[in-house]
Each structure stands twice: as structure tokens, then as C-alpha cells.
């Protein structure tokens, strides 16, 4: 069956809406479902899909009926400022909308990843060279800042000023590297 909305992609999500006039049901594709406000996951679809997996683990009860009711009352959770995805919607469709989602849901993700990746929650593999460099620069800035505070407390103000200049130079370096993450501020 094709998506009721775009009629182009196959429908994979069932969107049910309850109102005084009864229940309406729409079959949507992933993309249209993402753009719609609220949807239900179709429990009859792909038995081992990631959505179902996530919904079952984090949606509450095991059986479908109470599980759907509990979803109604489940809070939306934080909303991603970049793509408007809520945490609840993320669990429903089983996909992130953008890289910023990871920041938005950061605290809740270890639980999700733990279930998906055999208990692992932290990356242990390849790191892009640029991030590696940036990471070491950030660490260095942190170290110098500690030394700077020490110097201030011991009233070695000239040392502190020199250290401050060093930090500023490194910060400039970070900006030049174009880290774009907005985390370069050590002030």
C-alpha cells in the first residue's frame, strides 16, 4: 500500500486520530509520518523493525493494547530545535531527524543504545583526524585554564596574563579549524 499523503512511497506507519466523530486511520510513509504531528506504529509490520524494538522497550507494557494506551499519556519529551523531532516521536519512528537530535536527547540515549548495542553506550572506534586535533586542543585549553586560575590565586598576575594569551591563541585556532559545534568557548 502506498502512503496516503504523498502516494509515492510505501506506507510503513499507521497514523490514527481519535475525535468525537470516531477514529480515522491514515497509512503514511516514513517521511510523511515524520512530518506529521502524531502517529502510531503499526505492530503488524516488519516483526523486528527498529521502531517496534524501541517502542516496546521504552513505550511501557509488552502487549499492544495497553501499550497503545500508555503511549497516549506518554510525554513528548524534549524537542529538537533543529528538526522539531520530539523524543517520543523518535521512539515511534526509530530514526533521528538530524545531528542535533543527539544533543537534544543526550541524557536519554545511553539507555536506548544500551539495548540496541549489547549494553554499549559509548563510541570506541575511529575518530576523524580533525576531531582528534580539536579534542586535544580543547583538552590543552582546559589544562592551561587550570594553571591560569592557580596563577591568579597565587597572585602571579603576569603568568596569568601570559596563560590567558595562550588560551586565546588556541581558541582562535579552534575557530579557524571550523569546529562549528559552538563548544569552543572556554570563558
Amino acid at each position, binding site marked *: 500500500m502506498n502512503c496516503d499523503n504523498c502516494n509515492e*512511497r510505501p506506507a510503513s506507519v499507521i497514523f490514527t486520530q481519535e475525535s468525537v466523530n470516531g477514529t480515522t486511520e491514515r497509512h503514511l510513509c516514513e517521511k510523511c509520518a515524520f512530518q506529521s504531528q502524531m502517529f502510531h506504529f503499526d505492530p503488524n509490520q516488519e516483526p523486528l523493525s527498529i521502531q517496534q524494538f524501541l517502542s516496546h522497550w521504552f513505550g511501557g507494557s509488552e502487549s499492544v493494547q495497553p501499550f497503545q494506551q500508555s503511549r497516549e499519556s506518554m510525554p513528548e519529551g524534549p524537542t529538537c530545535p533543529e528538526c522539531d523531532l520530539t523524543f517520543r516521536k523518535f521512539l515511534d519512528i526509530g530514526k533521528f531527524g538530524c545531528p542535533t537530535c*543527539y544533543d537534544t536527547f543526550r541524557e536519554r540515549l545511553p539507555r536506548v543504545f544500551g539495548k540496541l548495542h549489547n549494553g554499549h553506550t559509548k*563510541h570506541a*572506534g575511529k575518530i576523524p583526524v580533525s576531531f582528534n586535533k580539536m579534542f586535544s586542543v580543547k583538552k590543552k585549553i582546559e589544562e592551561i585554564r587550570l594553571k591560569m586560575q592557580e596563577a591568579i590565586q597565587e597572585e602571579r598576575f603576569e603568568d596569568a596574563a601570559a596563560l590567558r594569551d595562550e588560551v586565546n591563541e588556541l581558541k582562535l585556532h579552534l575557530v579557524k579549524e571550523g569546529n562549528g*559545534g559552538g563548544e569552543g568557548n572556554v570563558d
Partner: protein
Amino acid sequence: MSIDKFMRGAVTGWMASHGEHSDIVMSTRIRLARNLRGFRFPIAFTAEEARQVDEQAATALLNSDEKGYAYMKMSELPSLDRQVLVEKHLVSPQLTDPKRHGAVLLSEDETLSIMVNEEDHIRIQCIYPGFQLENAYEHADSVDDYLEKKLPYAFDEDFGYLTSCPSNTGTGMRASVMMHLPALTITKQIERIIPAITRLGMVVRGSYGEGSEAPGNIYQVSNQTTLGKPEKEILADLKNIALRLIAHERRSREILLSKSQVALSNKLFRSLGIISFARLLPSGEAARCLSDVRLGIDLGIIKDVDMSILNELMIFMQPGFLQQYAGSELTAEERDIFRANLFRERLKIETQSEDNNKEN
């Protein structure tokens, strides 16, 4: 490099029959999922974002030292050509959805394909013939090294490479080996083995994605976990499991051979007979017979058929290829007729050319 070469060229890189354990492991595939910072993932992005991602990725690759990338926009390819790319495993079915703004960059030998705007912005895919996990990974990794210098990858210190699906987060790597396991299937041992492998954090599927049915006794074994383990460790784990499967399959083959040689060779030769002489050849039967003949060659029972022809036929028997070859759209029955013709022709051509070689 013309698109025609990709579409009609006889054999794509991974179909060649060589590499370690190539009698059982048909091909090895590494896929790395990468995304660009500052753009939403394809599930949520706008057409304009899609265009920019496409432009950045294509520019980076087409200007690289590696010459001969062919760039194809899915929306500009005829549907039959898209289907052929899918059947060659060079792009995923999802990428060909014209609404996705998908594109692919293919290396000249088709070992490497980089999908743009699939589920993730970039998917680097490397397919090698036989069992070559390390080589395939190194190749994909080198392309990744090049791209990370040119493009702003979305990466996080805790979560690694950020991907649209949480099941890819971390390394973004899916490594898989395509294995021909007829003896384990005939003896039904595979039914016990699959759940055991699943418990070890690996996935076993039929060769064309989900579902337990494995047409042609071909299974795809891949890693499930992408977070918390370095790439090398994931590859080592997969290699280990694949090696155990290979050993298991070999043992089962020996047992089959020793216990029922006549019945087995009867079955395998009948299948050779079917694909050599059939006038109507449905795809299911073709896949089953190809598996039998392949086993026959591996066991030394069938001698004068070249394995690379079987690999080629496995790809060419699919609907997209057949229609490409025929130069027109075909109904299901026409395809069965055409498939039968193609099989007869290829198998005969080969024996003739071998005869010629002997005369020379």
C-alpha cells in the same frame, strides 16, 4: 565512463570468482554511514538541503585523485537502469526512490559505490569478491579518510559517527559476508545455527535483505552492533563467525558426499540439466539450480562449467537485467523464456570456447 558500461558491462568486480574461501564466501561488503554537520538527515531534510549535500559530496569525490568515478542522479536514470544498479548491489532499493534526491558515485571497477542521500547523507560501500574483510575495510576506510578532510562530518565524542538510525550510531559500519551454504541448508542445520549466531550479536539474512527465506541458499551474515567496539574488533568477530560457518559447511558437505554420493550427484546433475536445457525458467528454480551446480563444481562432481559464469548468471537472471538485455519490458512469462534462453546460451558458449581453447 559511460553509464552503458555499468549497465551492460558483463561482470562487475565482486562477481569474479576469486579470493580466499571463494567457494563458500561469494563476496564481502563494508558499508560506512556518514552524515554532514549542518544538514538534517534525509528523513527530515528539504529539497534544498538535499541538493547541497549532493553537491558537496559529488564535488569532493569528483575532484579526488581517484579518477573515473561515475556520477548518477537517481532521478535522471530510467527506472530499468535503477533496477539494474540495485540487482548488482551497487545501490540499495531505497536510494532509487526518485523523491529521495538520491545519487551514486561508482568507481570504474564498481568495487566502490558511494550513495548520497540514502538513509544517511553518505554511505560508502565497498564490495570485494570472496572473503576479504580486511581489504574491503581498508579500501572503504581510505575513502572515508579522504572525505573527512573535505566534508564536515557529524561526529560526537560520546556517540561517534551520528547516523539517522540509532542502530548504525558509533562506527556507522556494517560489514557483511555473502555465503553459499547449501549443505547446512539441505541438512537443516542452518535453522539451529541462525539463532545461535544472532545471540553473538550478528545477523543472518537471505541475500536480498530481510526475511528468513534464502533463495539459492545464499545467506548474508553481518554485524548488528556498531557502538562500543572498534572497527577492527567488529571485523575480527565477524571473521571468526564466518570461519566457523565455513568449517561447518565443509564438514556437512563431506558428510553428504560420503553418505549419499549417488543421490547427491543425481540432484546436482539434474539441476545442471534444467538450466542447460529448460525453455521456461522461473527465477526461484533458476536460483535453486544455480546453487546445486555451484555445489557440484565445489565438490568436483561437475567439472566443465566455469564458476564465474554462475556468478554472472546469478545477477543476470534478475528481472531488471533480463529486460535490459532484451532491450524491452517483459512480462513474467516472457522473462522466464528469456531467462531460459540466456542460461542455455551462456552455458553453451562457455563449453564451446573451452573446446576451441583445447584445439588451439
